[in-house]
């Protein structure tokens, strides 16, 4: 039995009575992070706006803590749900602290005057996002990142049981992206909060989410664990990626492979090949890569960028067959680049390939790599 804290049933969402997505069914439990991913314009924000009642539902219901939200009083909802949306918060003549303290609104009396306890909670929330330094400055003068952190503090001091965030990391630098997500994780762990958010950063979504919802133009496609959602082929299809590729293991993106008759063979391994592969890709030079063990980091990038990659199974010795295949490719190439200085026991095949290239006069030292696209000393 699912004990959703916040979930939707047969929800149709859209603007001005025109449904954009139909029959949306998603839910989040307390102590869990649910992340919405999907291409631009697929309707992630629309779903979130409908769940917080900013948009009227076209059909179906949203249930919060066992009650239909449409039948709940605003004040009741405010004590259970906090938001951090992309809408700008107007804060005329307000300091950062003033903005954070608006989170206490549902708990204050008729005139909204803060008690000592309220002020303490505001201070705690500011400390949580490390905002003490700039909380006293006018909100309008803060950077987007600082504002975002204070808005999170605002949501925190509202003491919600669920937080809904629309692309909370958009304006943040890497440090603060991680920090913001770390704070969310803490809220989930320590206060058993439920989190629903949309994220564009797939790598972060993969790492922080307990469950992931993939949204396409046709509706919610899948709702599953990150392990099942973040499969290279699925993500590439979800976003309709036509150039470049997505690597599910690292959550990283690679640019499109340069197709063509390879002129270079790159001998790589142990991460030494990656900068060379990327340099060649940037300059539009098609290349082959080898001989790589399939548990080598270079293998994954080479597979995304090289025209052909010669590989051997993980931890297997470099057999005759692989070396023969590589030297056949080298014969067709003008140059060979070797990124390795030392060769381990399982890597003797690459040493013989390098020696062979040297004999053929094809070996190009790494420091002369640029000759491949400048044309050398011709």
């Amino acid at each position: 039995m699912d004990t959703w804290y916040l979930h939707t049933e047969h929800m149709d969402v859209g603007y001005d009575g025109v449904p954009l997505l139909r029959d949306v069914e998603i839910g989040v439990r307390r102590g869990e992070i649910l992340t919405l991913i999907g291409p631009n314009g697929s309707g992630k924000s629309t779903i979130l706006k409908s769940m917080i009642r900013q948009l009227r539902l076209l059909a179906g219901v949203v249930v919060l803590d066992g009650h239909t939200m449409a039948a709940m009083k605003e004040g009741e909802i405010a004590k259970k749900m906090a938001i951090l949306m992309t809408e700008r918060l107007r804060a005329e003549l307000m300091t950062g602290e003033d903005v954070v303290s608006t989170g206490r609104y549902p708990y204050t009396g008729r005139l909204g005057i803060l008690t000592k306890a309220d002020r303490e909670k505001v201070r705690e929330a500011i400390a949580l996002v490390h905002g003490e330094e700039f909380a006293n400055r006018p909100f309008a003068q803060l950077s987007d990142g600082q504002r975002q952190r204070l808005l999170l503090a605002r949501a925190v001091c509202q003491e919600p049981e669920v937080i809904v965030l629309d692309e909370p990391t958009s304006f943040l630098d890497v440090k603060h992206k991680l920090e913001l997500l770390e704070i969310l994780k803490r809220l989930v762990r320590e206060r058993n909060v439920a989190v629903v958010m949309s994220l564009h950063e797939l790598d972060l979504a993969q790492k922080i989410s307990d469950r992931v919802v993939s949204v396409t133009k046709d509706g919610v496609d899948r709702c599953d664990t990150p392990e099942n959602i973040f499969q290279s082929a699925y993500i590439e299809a979800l976003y309709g990626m036509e150039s470049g590729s997505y690597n599910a293991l690292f959550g990283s993106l690679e640019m499109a492979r340069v197709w063509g008759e390879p002129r270079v063979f790159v001998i790589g391994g142990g991460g030494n090949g990656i900068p060379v592969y990327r340099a060649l890709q940037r300059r539009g030079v098609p290349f082959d890569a080898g001989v790589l063990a399939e548990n080598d980091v270079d293998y994954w990038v080479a597979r995304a960028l090289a025209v052909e990659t010669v590989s051997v199974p993980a931890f297997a010795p470099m057999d005759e067959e692989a070396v023969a295949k590589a030297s056949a490719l080298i014969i067709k190439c003008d140059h060979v680049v070797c990124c390795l200085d030392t060769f381990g026991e399982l890597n003797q095949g690459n040493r013989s390939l390098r020696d062979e290239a040297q004999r053929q006069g094809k070996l190009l030292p790494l420091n002369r790599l640029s000759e491949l696209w400048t044309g050398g000393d011709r």
Partner: protein
Amino acid sequence: MEKRTRLCLGFGGLLVALLLLIVWNVNAGSVHVTPGEILSILWGKGGDGAVIVRGIRLPRIFAAALLGGALALSGFLLQTFFANPIAGPFILGISSGAKLILSLTLIVFLSRGVAVGSLALIVASFCGAMLSMGFVLLISSKVKRMSLLIISGVMIGYICSAVTDFVITFADDANIINLHHWSLGSFSGITWGNVGVMAAVILPALVLAFLLSKPIGAYQLGEVYAQNMGVNIRLFRAVLILLSSVLSAAVTAFAGPISFVGVAVPHIVRTVFKTAKPLIMIPACFLGGAVFCLLCDLIARTAFAPTELSISSVTALFGAPVVILVMLRRQKENL
């Protein structure tokens, strides 16, 4: 601590200014009344100036203070509602709408020889205010740019004024002079009975607005956030519209359309108090409006005595530059 000092100084300054202007207003005029005489008149003793002070100047002072406060408060509420710092009852054409319906009512009743009571005036004025407000709301749902909304409001104001002028032109001779005088805006000819009615309308509205400080503060952040903070947006918007319309209708009913108080005073108050918090803004705007209108009325009465200026000309002289200032400042902030 610095905040608290600013608050005390601000409110203290406003109260002192209010007191000074009241004394000055009682004192100034074709018949001079010394402060000593004022006290004795207030204690109920007769004298040369007693009739003038009790019958004319005091009600006028009360009216100017109450109506000025109402205008400023109405302006503040409209600015909150439209999230637009230069919104106000006059600029958005709400005062002019009230003026139009009010003139029609007056002409219809007076031509049949029926006297119109204060309350009926307010009701007619309120209907007019709501009419203009309806148009402004309709336009505001279509345009998002604040300058366009203001321009639409000004146009609505012009249309209403034009129709009012037509109506007045075809009215009976006897009515024209009064109507014409009133349609320019003036605090003259106010009776104690009028003051009672306006207080009965304006003061409850002031109290209600003050009690709504909390949702107003939430609404200032933006609708999305206000809703998440537990504000019933639809109900709140309706109340805000009704309140600001009632306030500007009351003013128009007794003093005609008075320009720019609703924009200038909230802006000056915000600048002085360095806050937009409704808990402070609402009483401060009301006091500030009272002070502003007392000062303007003093100038209107005494600058070219015995000729009296229309109050609107004086308020415009002070208020319009403030509007320009606000727009320039906004422009700078947006860039």
